[in-house]
């Protein structure tokens, strides 16, 4: 068994607001193994982005108030800013949702892609530019040498995202965190970018943490998946298992509520009732129980912990932990 590359243990990140404390990440633990693609899926406010930012120690104005993030033997939460700068962009790279604002509009793209090399490897302008152009070509930008001299606004959304990916990969990091990398893109361009990410994962061996709200993307890209709700992990396991027999009512209901392209007949959708949780004022017990059609009395009292359910999956649910199968009309 290989050692996991990244180990997040009981991570807690909070934000102070005038209405109260928001527990954005509320006890999250998971591992990322070398070379694999892990999906973190959930809706807005579930904490998936804050988890990623906390790993990179970019969570401000939030604060990490508990837990650890172990990467190559070091606890990143204990690093100084100096030490984190060595990690960011060099060992762990991150790409974001909006390629419009992630690139600096006043610098040429080639220069920006080369920046991590200048910063982390101390290469000179010429050498780093050559490497950057090479990388731009490898992520599928035609006429890379010419395009490197262009500014971000001269690229389309999909191309900009490729530039971001190139920038992330120049230092051949061990981990690539992609936070909703295709949400802002058209679906045909999304397919291109996801294809690129698959290719990158194969060719460079970079472990990828793919954060998204789109279950279809997870199904096509990730070997393992983590489902988050209200700052906690509610289900985790191999993608095929989680989709075939979800062990948490949230995952189960979510899968049933999405219209599928390959659906045969028009079945009315079965939405999840109720509203997304208020992170300042979470309900007692399980955060999902007000919306859950399987809830029992215990769910409103005790908060379930993530436990093995079935052979390969883990779920934080009293009902499934006690052996009940999730079925419905």
């Amino acid at each position, binding site marked *: 068994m290989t050692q996991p590359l990244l180990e997040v243990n009981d991570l807690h990140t909070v934000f102070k607001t005038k209405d109260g404390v928001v527990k954005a990440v509320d006890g999250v633990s998971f591992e990322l193994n070398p070379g694999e693609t892990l999906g973190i899926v959930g*809706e*807005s406010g579930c904490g998936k982005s804050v988890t990623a930012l906390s790993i990179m120690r970019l969570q401000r104005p939030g604060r990490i108030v508990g837990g650890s993030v172990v990467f190559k033997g070091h606890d990143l939460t204990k690093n100084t800013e100096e030490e984190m700068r060595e990690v960011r962009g060099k060992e762990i790279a991150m790409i974001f949702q909006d390629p419009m604002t992630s690139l600096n509009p006043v610098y040429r793209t080639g220069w920006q892609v080369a920046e991590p090399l200048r910063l982390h490897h101390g290469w000179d302008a010429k050498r780093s530019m050559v490497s950057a152009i090479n990388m731009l070509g490898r992520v599928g930008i035609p006429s890379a040498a010419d395009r490197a001299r262009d500014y971000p606004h001269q690229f*389309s959304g*999909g*191309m900009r995202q490729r530039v971001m990916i190139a920038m992330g990969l120049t230092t051949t990091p061990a981990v690539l965190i992609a936070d909703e990398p295709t949400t802002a893109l*058209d*679906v*045909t*361009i*999304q*397919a*291109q970018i*996801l*294809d690129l990410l698959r290719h990158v994962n194969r060719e460079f061996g970079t472990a990828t943490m793919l954060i998204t*709200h*789109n*279950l*279809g*993307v*997870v*199904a*096509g890209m990730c070997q393992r998946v983590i489902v988050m709700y209200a700052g906690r992990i509610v289900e985790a396991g191999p*993608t*095929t298992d989680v*989709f*075939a027999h979800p062990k948490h009512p949230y995952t189960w*209901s*979510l*899968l049933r*509520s*999405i*219209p*599928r*392209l*390959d*659906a*045969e007949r*028009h079945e*009315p*959708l*079965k*939405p*999840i*009732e109720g*509203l*997304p949780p208020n992170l300042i004022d979470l309900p007692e017990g399980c955060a999902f129980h007000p919306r859950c059609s399987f809830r029992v009395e215990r769910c409103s009292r005790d908060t379930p912990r993530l436990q093995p359910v079935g052979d390969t999956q883990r779920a934080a649910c009293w009902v499934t932990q006690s052996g009940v199968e999730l079925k419905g009309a």
Partner: protein
Amino acid sequence: MSSRGPLEPAVKTLTRAWTSADPLLSITDLKVWFPVASGVLQRTVGHVHAVDGVDLEIKTGETLGLVGESGCGKSTLGRTAIRLITPTAGKIVFKGQDITNLRGSKLRELRRDVAMIFQDPYASLDPRQTVGDIVGEPIDVHGLAKGKARQDRIQELLRVVGLNPRFVDRYPHEFSGGQRQRIGIARALAVEPSFIVCDEPISALDVSIQAQIINLLERLQSKFNLTYLFIAHDLSVVKHISNRIAVMYLGKIMEMSPGTQLYKRPRHPYTGSLLSAIPIPDPVVEMRRERTIIQGDVASPVNPPSGCRFRTRCPRAKEHCAEEVPPLESFGDEHLAACFYPLD
């Protein structure tokens, strides 16, 4: 509450009487071009061909889905259909009346029979107005009810979309995205329209809320005999809610067909690649799928390619495709596609 019955046209007909067996909306060779100004003197240097020759009909009571990626013109088409935009050329006929160049009070009369639901639940409601004012505004603008009758109507509208009428005095920012979208829907229903253009009504909502709104829209449609033009970029959702689907690319319709047909047997290569690109939430299916990933980006709507718009990215394109614009041809069963070398 209103003197009009559900099927009585709000706009006067000039030719023979329109009935619900006729198409509700008929669009012929519609073109909407926006000028592009440049330079110090702001000269018009070109045009964005947002909609460039579209023919379509929407039957009474159906949901026509309109899909396409950014820049295809679907939003522009939707807004022009209810005359929020004046077309550059072409003809729009609504309930038998030519509304293409309607202005002034006649245009305002049209507004009593059509409505629109917007994408962004945050931007589509005036943050300075209460929910009651927002939903009541169409009633005020057209003088449909006053005093207690007006209050009752507003409360009824809120109930119908699933909101507690107690919250008439609240402001939009106190609600979640899904609830705000319901407010927008209530506002659209206030005039008792027969036709509603839904412009990406769920794209900005959380996945778990999208299904609630889709179900609500379907329920309202059968309850109030509504006809929808449902615009979205997510084909899975569009296929679920629509009777027929039109696929747009760079201002023109590439293919139009009933939903299941479109998925099972797409004819246009663009539709094929669109379907292939959509991720399906099923890992087994995803692994087995054959992907046709088309290269390149969408061409510019200011200078669209000659002949078939899609030819620059089409794996099946031949010389002929650059010379002539393929017309929409029938492939049987209400299935139309504009391609010289369609998929089989």
